[in-house]
């Protein structure tokens, strides 16, 4: 038992492996938030008047709001000084910007290589298009041509505003309105870039789409905005992955993701989040306060969220589905791993509005060190939602006796034909399980890793093939060096 405690302790103490800083000159705005800064961002990005107006409306609304405090964070979080954040920071470009990968700053590419995702290799081996966001501006967009043939638009948000303003204007803010919540409103005012995906009627996107977000410059809040629209019968799978360099100050990450699925459309959105969690004493780390929501507008539409959350000092997000179309389906698969002094309050919301709507929630929380991990989820069945179905399973795994695992489900039902079920368990890795493995010659470290992987399997298998390997790697790297 002493050994397995040592194992867990060692695991809890391992260092963040991706803490390095790329030294690139930035073309930044001065720190602070005001209407002038918003005008500056908008002008820098050469945006149309309506978008600037939308940003300003959001900003004026944000001034009237106060930060929420209902989340379960036993250690709380430090006040955020919104005036010390730099809201715009773009890597300086030589000339007119890169036209191909060869023109991209080699230092940037090196950064991605250190993260284990060399662009070329991924392009060749995995057939994945990568829209790499470095700080706030997209620097490399690949495979655009292949996608263009099918009529799929996959580009940076700024580019979409320039090239497809009608689509952006039609859908922006329809799922997460600018007045939605404190952090989404802030994002609406100051978002700098992000991704835009549009899959036209009847098209099945030929490849997995992926974006690597990366916070780089010091004191840069990152406010991306992602908008994905799948028209009638279209389908798309999208993955975002995040890693960030080591910093001693808390950085705010307030992104907004909007998904829109029309009749028979299917959107699969997967996240691997590995932002800097702070050191083992809880200094520094990212505040990951993200609003993610999908709307199944069409009949038989399907939105699926998969997330593997291993990073951030505080993770606070609820990828949600509004099941408006009849027979639409919402899914949420989550692994949240917290360690040291990390805190997570995450889960989902499933709002059943249409008839025969179904939702499925699987949440796996792992808590180690001094971490707190909470699942918070809402299943709401409106009066109109005849024959709605929901099944929720949330399991917690505790590693160590100083951490906490909490479960706060909310179930609100207004229709008797609804069937809603919720189940949850909390347990630890059994000594007998570890013993079983070790007496068969498996090292204790591998045993812990195997058991954790097995615990998460139901979620990991939902990840697209290319990333399941990476997530697997991430979980086992997290457990690396844990043998006493």
């Amino acid at each position, binding site marked *: 038992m002493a050994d397995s405690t040592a194992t867990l302790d060692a695991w809890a103490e391992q260092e963040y492996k991706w803490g390095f800083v790329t030294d690139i000159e930035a073309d930044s705005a001065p720190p602070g938030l005001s209407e002038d800064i918003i005008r500056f961002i908008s002008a820098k990005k050469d945006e149309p008047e309506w978008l600037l107006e939308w940003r300003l409306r959001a900003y004026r609304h944000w001034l009237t709001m106060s930060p929420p405090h209902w989340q379960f964070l036993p250690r709380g979080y430090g006040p955020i000084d919104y005036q010390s954040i730099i809201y715009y920071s773009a890597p300086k470009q030589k000339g007119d910007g890169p036209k191909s990968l060869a023109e991209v700053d080699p230092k940037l590419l090196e950064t991605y290589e250190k993260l284990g995702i060399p662009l070329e290799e991924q392009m060749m081996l995995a057939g994945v298009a990568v829209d790499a966001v470095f700080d706030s501006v997209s620097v490399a967009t690949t495979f655009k041509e292949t996608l263009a043939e099918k009529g799929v638009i996959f580009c940076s948000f700024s580019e979409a505003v320039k090239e497809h303003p009608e689509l952006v204007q039609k859908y922006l803010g329809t799922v997460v309105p600018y007045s939605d919540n404190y952090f989404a409103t802030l994002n609406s005012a100051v978002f700098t870039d992000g991704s835009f995906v549009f899959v036209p009627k009847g098209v099945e996107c030929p490849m997995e789409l992926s974006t690597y977000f990366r916070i780089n410059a010091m004191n840069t809040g990152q406010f991306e905005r992602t908008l994905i629209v799948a028209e009638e019968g279209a389908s798309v799978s999208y993955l975002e992955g995040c890693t960030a360099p080591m910093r001693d100050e808390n950085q705010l990450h307030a992104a907004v993701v909007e998904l829109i699925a029309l009749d028979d459309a299917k959107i699969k959105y997967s996240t691997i989040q590995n932002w800097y969690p702070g050191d083992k004493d809880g200094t520094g780390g990212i505040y990951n306060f993200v609003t993610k929501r999908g709307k199944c507008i069409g009949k038989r539409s399907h939105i699926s969220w998969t997330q593997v959350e291993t990073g951030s000092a505080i993770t606070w997000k609820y990828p949600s589905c509004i099941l408006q179309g009849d027979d639409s389906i919402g899914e949420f698969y989550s692994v949240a791993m917290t360690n040291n002094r990390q805190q997570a309050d995450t889960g989902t919301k499933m709002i059943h509005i249409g008839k025969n709507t179904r939702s499925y929630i699987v949440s796996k929380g792992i808590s180690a060190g001094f971490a707190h991990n909470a699942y918070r989820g809402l299943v709401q069945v409106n009066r109109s939602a005849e024959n709605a179905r929901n099944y929720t399973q949330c399991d917690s795994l505790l590693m160590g006796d*100083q951490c*906490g695992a*909490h479960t706060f489900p909310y179930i609100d039902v207004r*229709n008797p034909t609804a069937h809603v079920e*919720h189940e*949850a368990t*909390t347990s*630890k890795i059994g000594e007998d399980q570890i013993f079983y493995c070790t007496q068969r010659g498996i090292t204790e470290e591998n045993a812990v890793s195997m058991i954790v992987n097995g615990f998460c399997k139901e979620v990991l298998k939902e990840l697209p093939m290319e990333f399941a390997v990476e997530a697997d790697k991430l979980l086992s790297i997290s457990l690396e060096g844990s043998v006493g």
Partner: protein
Amino acid sequence: MISTTDQRTMTILDLPGATPDDVAFPPWLATMRRAAATRFAELGLPARNDEEWRHTSLRSLQSTPLVPAGGTASSLDAGVVNAAALPGLTGPRLVFVDGVLSADLSSLDALPAGLTVLPLSEAAARHETLVREHFGVLADGAREAFTSLNTACLGEGTFVHVARGVDITEPILVLAIATGRAATATHPRLLLIAEESSRASVVEDYVSLGHVPHLTNIVTEIFVGANAHVQHAMAVRETDEAFNISTLKVRQERDSYFASHSALFGGALVRNQVNPVLVGTGGHSLLNGLYLPRGRQHHDSHMRVEHQAPNCESRQYYAGILQDHAHGVFSGRIVVSQIAQKTDAIQQNRNLLLSKDAQANTKPQLEIYADDVRCTHGATIGELDEEALFYLRSRCLSEEAARGLLVYAFAREGLERIELAPLRDALTNLLVEQLPYRGLLDSFVGDEAG
């Protein structure tokens, strides 16, 4: 008789200042009463943005004119009282009429040795140290407005003491009757101390005779000594206009057993709060509840089980049957502190929606700080199982009989957990009266009882 118009009408917020202190309490209790009034004024009534009151609005309570309880007991015919009381409970009983203790209707004769049942004021005088060491310790009202209100408006209450090793078989009954002669605000209070290795049970029964709005704001404190065995039951069967708020606080020492049974059968707005704290190892806690809101009734059950010692077990089973426009709320939280290793906790909430206008909100929650524990919770909301219906129909039961039987079976499961046979039977009969298709059920129930 006093009529409503003769009295100065007031809202709930005015009650602490207006409730007469006509019961002779010792000075320390009078001081406590005043402090609680101040605290209540500071706290105010909980609003909807208070997470604990998210689904329960107190707006209607706040706008209801109320009359403070007090004065002398209204006369009530013994026959009326006996008809109102749960049948079969023949043990010691205290009867409160509109919040005032009626000595005539109560019976505290020939108590078994080792059992003390007294009006709270008398206990405070005769057993001052004992009362002072326990009263308001669990229910301090620091953060709970209704507990503060109860202490601030304290009238006569009930005191029960069971001496070490004494086994009391017959349940003690506390019957509180709202006559409906006025919109009375009453604040029943019960203090039960069960010493080491003793055994006792208490039934609190709340009944309305008329159809007038009234407030019943109950606070119960129970101390379960080491190896003691205590059962508590609460039946709420008040009128469609009544507000019933109850707070049950329990402290359990090592190897103790405590069971709470709540049967919410009536009341416009019922809030049932149960909060056992397991402070000694090897304790067992059972929270069993059934809520049956009908019409526009709103029943809110709020559980909080705190494991503060290793090797304890807790079980929560709450079931709701929601008819018409009823609204059922369940919120349960298991809190396992770091020291409480080897905790075994189960929480179950099941809801049956029988109408398309009914609404259920459930929040089964876990808050866990210890790693070697087994905690599970589950919640379901749905209508009757089509396959079960088909099974019964295929055996020649009519649609109605099949539905009635399934609803009965759903509710019956909770009642079966009640160990006290007379109480179980009394509540089962009450249940049948409340259920749809009751005519069809009488034969089943009769068979079982017989």
